[in-house]
């Protein structure tokens, strides 16, 4: 299991025309600390993976309707629908998984008991399974994503013939899961352990085992989104350690909202120590035709110092990210409201850097 990740990427690297890091991976789990742009990058990755005529499913599980907001479409129902077309003709479909609907689905699929739903709701069973019981909700959510990973196309002809679909193509070339935040990701994915306390044997356990099989396979990778700040980077590294500990494959680190430094390194280092050549600054401002150049230079040098300190801190935390020894992708800060062109731009950057 542990050597899985390297084996996959290594093999693919040899045959791929383009240097793509995650060929062969079919379930991309994207996590990150709140506020780092996890949903945005999950969507961008889905677009990147779809480009060139692929079909990708983007799944959200937190009931936030984050995908609908990003793609500016009406709230997603519990149903897979197309939300965007990728460069070169691929499709991104999206699904907002609802734990309650997934539970009813599950009951129908395995027990043919959809109609039990109402009684279950009245009795508090649905509430228990979807909001209270540890792991039940997660196994329902991950169960839906892993089902989409395994799903194969069925033609009318082989509908009658059972189990004859093994050679049929997969419905989705890849599934991207916009997962819960880093602090909860290891627990969320390690559904087996999660439900173990409640169900040591029995159907829930069996279902968890099936889900786990997909999550543990070398076809699944967990990507971490972070920004260059201390706390998110720390959480990212902690998350990587926790996810490795439960034996799951780590993908790449997506460093989001990266800004280019505006000054050469020497000037930055000086500014971080509060050395700004205010005279040269004033001179420059004056020649740009600005009034009160001297006073303005004083005020702007304060902004430069802060910028330089930020860049210095960013360099320090970038160093720490390197310790994780995972492929890093750097995504530029997109100012203003993020729209579809912005997502395509991020998808392009991910492709250029080999993430898809």
């Amino acid at each position, binding site marked *: 299991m542990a050597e899985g990740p390297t084996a996959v990427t290594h093999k693919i690297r040899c045959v791929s025309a383009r240097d793509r890091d995650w060929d062969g991976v079919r379930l991309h789990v994207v996590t990150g600390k709140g506020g780092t742009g996890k949903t945005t990058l999950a969507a961008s990755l889905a677009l990147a993976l779809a480009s060139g005529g692929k079909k990708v499913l983007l799944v959200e599980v937190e009931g936030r309707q984050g995908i609908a907001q990003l793609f500016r479409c009406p709230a997603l129902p519990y149903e897979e629908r197309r939300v965007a077309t990728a460069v070169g003709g691929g499709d991104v479909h999206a699904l907002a998984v609802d734990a309650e609907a997934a539970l009813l689905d599950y009951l129908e699929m395995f027990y043919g008991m959809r109609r039990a739903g109402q*009684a279950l709701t009245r009795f508090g*069973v649905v509430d228990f399974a979807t909001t*209270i019981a540890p792991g039940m909700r997660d196994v329902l959510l991950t169960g839906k994503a892993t089902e989409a990973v395994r799903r194969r196309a069925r033609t009318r002809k082989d509908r009658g013939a059972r189990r004859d679909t093994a050679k049929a193509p997969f419905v989705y070339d890849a599934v991207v899961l916009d997962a819960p935040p880093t602090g909860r990701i290891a627990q969320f994915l390690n559904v087996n352990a999660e439900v173990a306390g409640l169900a040591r044997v*029995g*159907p829930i356990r069996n279902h968890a085992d099936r889900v786990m099989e997909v999550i543990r396979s070398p076809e699944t990778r967990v990507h971490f989104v972070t920004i260059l700040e201390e706390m998110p980077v720390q959480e990212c590294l902690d998350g990587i350690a926790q996810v490795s500990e439960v034996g799951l494959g780590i993908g790449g680190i997506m460093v989001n909202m990266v800004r280019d430094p505006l*000054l050469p390194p020497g000037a930055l280092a000086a500014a971080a120590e509060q050395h700004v050549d205010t005279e040269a600054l004033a001179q420059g*401002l004056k020649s740009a035709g600005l009034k009160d150049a001297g006073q303005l230079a004083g005020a702007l040098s304060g*902004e430069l110092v802060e910028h330089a300190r930020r860049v210095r*801190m960013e360099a320090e935390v970038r160093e720490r990210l390197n310790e994780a020894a995972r492929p890093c992708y750097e995504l530029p800060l997109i100012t203003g409201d993020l729209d579809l062109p912005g997502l395509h731009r991020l998808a392009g950057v991910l492709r250029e850097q080999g993430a898809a």
Partner: protein
Amino acid sequence: MADARTPPFDVDALLDDPATRIVVCCGSGGVGKTTTAAALGLRAAERGRHTVVITVDPARRLAQSLGLTELDNTPRPVPLEATAKGSLHAMMLDMKRTFDEIVEAHADPERAAQILANPFYQSLSSSFSGTQEYMAMEKLGQLRRRDEWDLIIVDTPPSRSALDFLDAPKRLGRFLDGRLIKFLGAPAKTGGRAFRLLGAGLGMVTGVIGKVLGAQLLKDVQTFVTAFDAVFGGFQERADQTYRLLQAPGTAFIVVAIPESDALREASYFVERLAAERMPLAGMVLNRTHRSSVPLLSAEQSEAAAQSLERSGDNPLAAAALRLHTERVRLQARESQMRQRFSAAHPAIGLTEVPARPEDIHDLAGLRQIGESLADTAAPGCDQGA
């Protein structure tokens, strides 16, 4: 400017008022609730209150800055400077231990041991969703009853929604007191009769529960319920009690958000909910805002000047400073637009801003600075328009 309508949030007035006994910091995940709670605690202590801060899952360095090096379920003193007029204690919530302590306090040793060893209890006390919120409220109630501190500041558990803090304990209480658990916990014979009495659909329910959960779980739940009922009484009632504490005079809520649409939307929901529950909202903290020290130099002017310098290539330093300034003014404009949108929807809510810092908080000095920003009613966020 529309700003003029936003009343300032006078943090010091709230902290200094001896009638303020509980301050609850709420907000969605990642907005800086814990840091805000710690900074408020420090400020209150230095201004003379005997304060305790209950944190939930603080970042390591923040915990260190409060002198909390390991998870410990009891308030520990935080050493302050000699000039501090009050005192500060801090603790990190350990939900399992809080739960265990309740059991130990209410049951005789033999029964307590039996409960603590029950697999269903272990799962309930360590991983049920809602347990953390329930136990945070429980701890709050305990500290309030001890009456050793005159101000308790609570950081709420990390969750996607701020509403979870209000809803999760009741949900858990409802479940533990509810039909399902009674039914699961009933011995097989009477259980069977209970189903018939409870009406149609239940045969199906038994079938599903048996099939889905399995017999082992049912057995664990049965022993748990038998042992637990005798010593503990109503879960929901207990949750309701703490809930009432949140509505009592002396409790104030502070909503923390960052100038991003998701966080502000969450804050809006929460504000509306507090009003519906008659829970007093003291004000809003807008965290990590960006301000320019030269607001009069507009983004357009600054950008034009930067472009002309870049064309000549003579003054790279000034060009960079102007580029930086342009970005900052634009960011500030976007942030204040978001703030104004929020304030227009909630015009009565006082607001204070805490500027983004290039580095994290490592020590009490950093927390003190956050406290100063919180209390700064002259800050741009609260001004009467530039």
